[in-house]
């Protein structure tokens, strides 16, 4: 069984595509380090990132895919799930052989899964545009989250347009990486340990209390519908929400 590991970057994944083609091998599994568990597949073989390979693959994809299809390919990759890489390897060969029309063939299971992957990634990133909670720290604002998918690259533009005048950090604790922004520079993503959580500035507690109180009174008695509320705001996001009472977070 062939099991490949790459560095977890998009460039790394493109290099992996290159390796797959040049060696004419479709691996049984391919994963970034955080999804590599030793198991039946044994030790993974490392596929190193090679910029010239990556850019060759990218220009190949540009020729074979429509602009929207390329975007879909990237966003589906962000799903970062068990079989994401293998699915995309199959997707690329399907479209490369069948033509651009194939991108839209929802009746092909591979294409359908890629669409669904993209949709779920976009759904979560849109949801987190709302559910992210910043808190004031000494030199800016900080938010932590544990998303199902790898949404940081999709959140960058949104928050950079919204808060262009303050430095901020969005920290993915699960993947130990962070989106960092400084005024008049563009956002970037880098590694950040999950223990490295900055401390709140002193006035933070007052504002959080005010928001908690406002949230509490906004519910209308006589209309309670916790099931509906959980459908929009699933439990797994509560941990990082200021307004959810502590006792409910553990329940």
């Amino acid at each position, binding site marked *: 069984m062939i099991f490949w590991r790459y560095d977890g970057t998009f460039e790394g994944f493109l290099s992996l595509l290159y390796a797959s083609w040049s060696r004419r091998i479709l691996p049984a599994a391919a994963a970034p380090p955080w999804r590599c568990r030793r198991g039946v597949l044994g030790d993974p073989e490392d596929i190193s990132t090679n910029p010239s390979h990556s850019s060759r693959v990218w220009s190949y994809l540009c020729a074979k895919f429509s602009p929207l299809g390329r975007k879909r390919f990237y966003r589906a990759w962000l799903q970062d799930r068990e079989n994401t890489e293998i699915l995309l390897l199959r997707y690329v060969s399907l479209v490369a052989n069948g033509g651009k*029309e194939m991108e*839209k*063939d*929802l*009746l092909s*299971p591979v294409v*359908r899964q890629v669409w669904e992957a993209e949709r779920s990634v976009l759904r979560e990133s*849109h949801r987190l*545009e*709302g*559910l*992210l*909670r*910043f*808190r*004031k720290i000494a030199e800016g*604002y900080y*938010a932590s989250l544990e998303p199902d998918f790898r949404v940081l690259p999709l959140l960058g533009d*949104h928050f950079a*347009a*919204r*808060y*262009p*005048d*303050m430095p901020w950090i969005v920290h993915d604790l699960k993947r130990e990486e962070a989106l960092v922004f400084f005024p008049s520079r563009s956002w970037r993503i880098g590694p950040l340990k999950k223990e490295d959580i900055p401390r709140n500035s002193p006035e933070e507690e*007052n*504002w959080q*209390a*005010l*928001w908690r*109180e*406002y*949230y509490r*009174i*906004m*519910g*209308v*008695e*006589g*209309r*309670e*519908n*916790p*099931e*509906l*509320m959980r*459908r*929009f*705001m699933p439990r797994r996001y509560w941990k990082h*929400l*200021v*307004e959810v009472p502590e006792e409910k977070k553990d329940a």
Partner: protein
Amino acid sequence: MELMKKLTILGEAAKYDVSCSSSGGTSGRRGAFGNASPAGVCHTWTSDGRCVSLLKVLYSNECINNCAYCVNRCSADVPRVSFTPEELAEIVMAFYRRNYIEGLFLSSGVERSPDYTTERMIRAVALLRHRYGFAGYIHAKAIPGTSPELLYKMGLLADRMSVNIELPSEKSLVRLAPQKSRHSVMTPMEKIRSAIQAYGEERRHSPRAPLFAPAGQSTQLIVGASPERDLQILRLCEHLYRWYSLKRVYYSAFVPVSSNPLLPQLAAPPLLREHRLYQADWMLRFYGFSAEEIVSDAYPDLDQDLDPKSSWALRHPDFFPLDVNRASYEELLRIPGIGVLSAKRIMQARRLRRLDAEHLKKIGVVLRRARFFLAFPEEGGRFSSLLLSPEKLRKELLPRKISREHPGQKRLPLEDPPLLSS
């Protein structure tokens, strides 16, 4: 903390206004920070399942009016407070920077006079826009009776404006809100409509022209506080969408807030009726139905057990079956259980091959209700619902789960979430 007390009172007093959407804003507003996302963003959901997008507060809960259905009527015994522009701006800034909210929804009781009240609201909003450079979303209420100059001033600062009609007929207004009249509500609505249109046209010619309420205007109707039938309500809404170009009409199930003898005594707010009205509203706005098709003199009320699209389909067996490979997009949208997303997927998938039931399932079309209204080639164009009597078909279309957790109050059916936002 003084601010906490004010926020509690003025938030509590504003929450019965159901509108909260932050969509339709433009990214064209210039400012130091903040923006309006055209799709709108929900930031949290309260215990009743409604989304919170904007900081919804009153500027003041002082009021000279005495509307029977309202918590802030002047005869009510509640503590009265007002924000100062600085206090309000400070809260909005702090909440916005922490990504708690998408912007501000500012309403107010009528303190002294409509003009006095509106002037103070304008001062607060202008402070946010000009001193703080806030370019996020602002929804401002137009107080009936405000002079046109002040309405224009507000429109130039806000993203959306709204005047609440509250009661669907003049008769009910006279009875329950003696200080208001249909005229006093419709005049500002018309003023805002014509200003939005005029500024919109100007902006098409020059992108530097000022913005006037770029996210349009909306209104709210209270359901169940007065005896109007759904027919009257939906006719009114159609009229509002067509002639006043409203972006949204919100429906608010009446929550009894006083024991006024003029008001009906309800055991629980009519949530299911509210939900059905929202479904009918979607049919008006997105599915190309007219109000007369949904309800008529023969059926003046929406069916509470069945969604309005299914009940329309049951009354129109002649319209079906539809051939999924030939039906136009507009026809597909009339099939119960098929919405905009499914219709679009069908249109796309059938370009590549002829579709049968299996194909539809594969592209994610839910056939539970739709299958009764579709004909497939492999069945020789046979129409499965013809095999069922209307009563049987009706039974098949009913939502499967009706909860027993809340006796006397049916749970909202799961197939269509009530879209209070977006």
